[in-house]
């Protein structure tokens, strides 16, 4: 079986006066139908890894495969087109367009891809996320938890193979956070999606099948069937090291 996402020897350096190395040779494979959390101290490169794997950023060196196709070999426009066919995104700050209604935000990636949204499918997704009543409203009238559910709906509606989530619960209260995590969990278990999630919260990471740890731009361990306590213990070790 091909991996949903595979990265090979990823390097990413930023030129900020003195060069900063965010990724220092990371290789990892994410099997289809799994839920992986990526954790690490701040500055460990976890967000950069996600952005490179998702085709939002371009690594300085190394290769990224999405569904067996090498993303890093294509140009900017082709990469965007490929990404919007295969991947969905959930970000900490929701990333909704304030000028568009909930429903319009949800179908935006489909529209951008020139696909006609299937009304029934859109309704079903909005219904699953408890947003049916809110479909015609602008994001500014929603709470943080509702906004993040809109973002999850947007990530799900195109039926992408992979969902990338960058601190999806970072701005949410406990209850909303649990809802969003349960939704991601359901997407994996019931619909066979692959979820890769960056988080700093051991409670959130415990929803995943596997936790991947990063420190200083390198892989620093892995945990299967994680519990919040085990994750927290491993993190403490990393920070102390």
């Amino acid at each position, binding site marked *: 079986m091909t991996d949903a996402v595979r990265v090979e020897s990823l390097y990413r350096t930023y030129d900020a006066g003195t060069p900063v190395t965010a990724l220092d040779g990371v290789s990892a494979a994410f099997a289809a139908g799994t839920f992986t959390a990526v954790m690490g101290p701040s500055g460990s490169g976890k967000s950069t890894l996600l952005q490179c794997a998702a085709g939002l950023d371009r690594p300085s060196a190394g290769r990224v495969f999405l569904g067996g196709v090498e993303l890093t070999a294509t140009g*900017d426009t082709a990469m*965007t087109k490929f990404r919007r066919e295969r991947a969905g*995104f959930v970000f900490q700050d929701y990333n909704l*367009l304030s000028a568009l209604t909930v429903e319009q935000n949800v179908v*935006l990636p489909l529209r951008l*891809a020139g696909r006609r949204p299937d009304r029934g499918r859109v309704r079903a997704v909005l219904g699953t996320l408890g947003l049916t009543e809110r479909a015609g409203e602008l994001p*500014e009238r929603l709470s943080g938890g509702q906004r993040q559910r809109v973002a999850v709906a947007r990530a799900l509606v195109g039926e992408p193979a992979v969902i990338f989530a960058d601190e999806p619960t970072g701005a949410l209260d406990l209850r909303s956070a649990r809802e969003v995590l349960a939704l991601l969990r359901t997407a994996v278990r019931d619909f066979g999606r692959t979820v890769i999630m960056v988080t700093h919260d051991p409670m959130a990471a415990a929803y995943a099948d596997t936790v991947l740890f990063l420190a200083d731009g390198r892989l620093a361990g892995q945990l299967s069937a994680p519990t919040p306590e085990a994750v927290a213990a491993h993190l403490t070790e990393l920070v102390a090291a």
Partner: protein
Amino acid sequence: MIAIALRTLRHRPGGFAATFLSAFLGASLLMAFASLLDTAAGADEASAESLGTTASVAGGWCLVIVVFAVTSTLSLAVRQRGEQFAVLRRAGATGPQLRRMIVGEAVAVAVLAAAVAVPVGLASGRVLLGLLKDTGQVAEGVGYAFGPVALAAGFGVTLVGAVIAGFATSRRTSRMGVKRERPRARRIAAGLFLGAAAGCAVLTATVMDGKGIDAMQTAGQAGIWGSIGLALLAPELLRLTGSGGQLASAVMPVTLFSGIATGTVYMQGIEDDAAAGQIRPDYARDIQTLNYVVVGMITVFVAIMLVNTLIAATVHRRREFAQLRLAGATRGQVTTMVAGEALRVTVTGILAGSAASLFTILPFGSARTGEIWPSATIAPYAVIAAIAVLLTATATLGTTRRSIRGPALLRA
């Protein structure tokens, strides 16, 4: 993409107010001057020549200012929505899609602005013709015409300007990853404009020496190019006075305004002194009228552009003000801080504009009277500086006060 663009326009029409206004004023001015060419088609030879000169000289100046104003306001409007474009990018919009969207918005605004400008351009053209008749440059019997030239110039220039501005702005925005301002292109452009200014100045002082009033053409241009060149260097000039580049967009219009207004008014002053008691060629009055009309129009135009830029810049900082208030700053402290910034903007702009106006004044004085430094009074300069201060202060403080009214809560 166009549908999304139009929806955004409807949702946030305020963000495009400055672009709309500068495109509208620009189209009005261009139509007014271009209608003189329509009028010339049905006039006698002498009148037609006079109309042609007025249209091409004044219209040409307007053209430059219009393109500059539309570009700068549009790029400001787009930059303010940088976050929105980043969101679209992450939602899967490709670079070309974003480009189409930005250009589409610009074109929509330009078409609307040009359409609204038709009646205003028509009326202003009529007033212009009246002025030319009053001063005897155009025969009484010539009838006003507003036709294809006016419409083509108004719509054509505004649209082409908007498309170019849209493309230029979107090239920066649609790139992935961290976007950075590229000062090199701007500095090169500034250098070219300053070079053109110096060239015109040298030409005025040498070739045009002794040519009398004709030296005005090159001298006037020198000042305009100089003003644009220095306006483009606004971030560097601000750094000289020790403040950040954030205020640069506000320094530009102040520089343009004080540079062009000071240069043209003093140039006309020198001319009037030099010609006192002499027999002047017929078209001298022509040019005098024209100079004041152009200064008046450009003043109004640049003034509105200035106010809009400042309002846009201040509104953009609403969040920053809110954070300052949350951190414990009183409303008075925020206002004082903004007033201080406004003062720096005004002083920097006026100084740069004064320097630019010397490109006009010095060589023209040398060519026309043999004296490099004019013996004119400081009064007009003081008036121009006062107008600049008044405009900047009103716009900045008015907007700031509005955006910090009420409690210190953060508003999205």
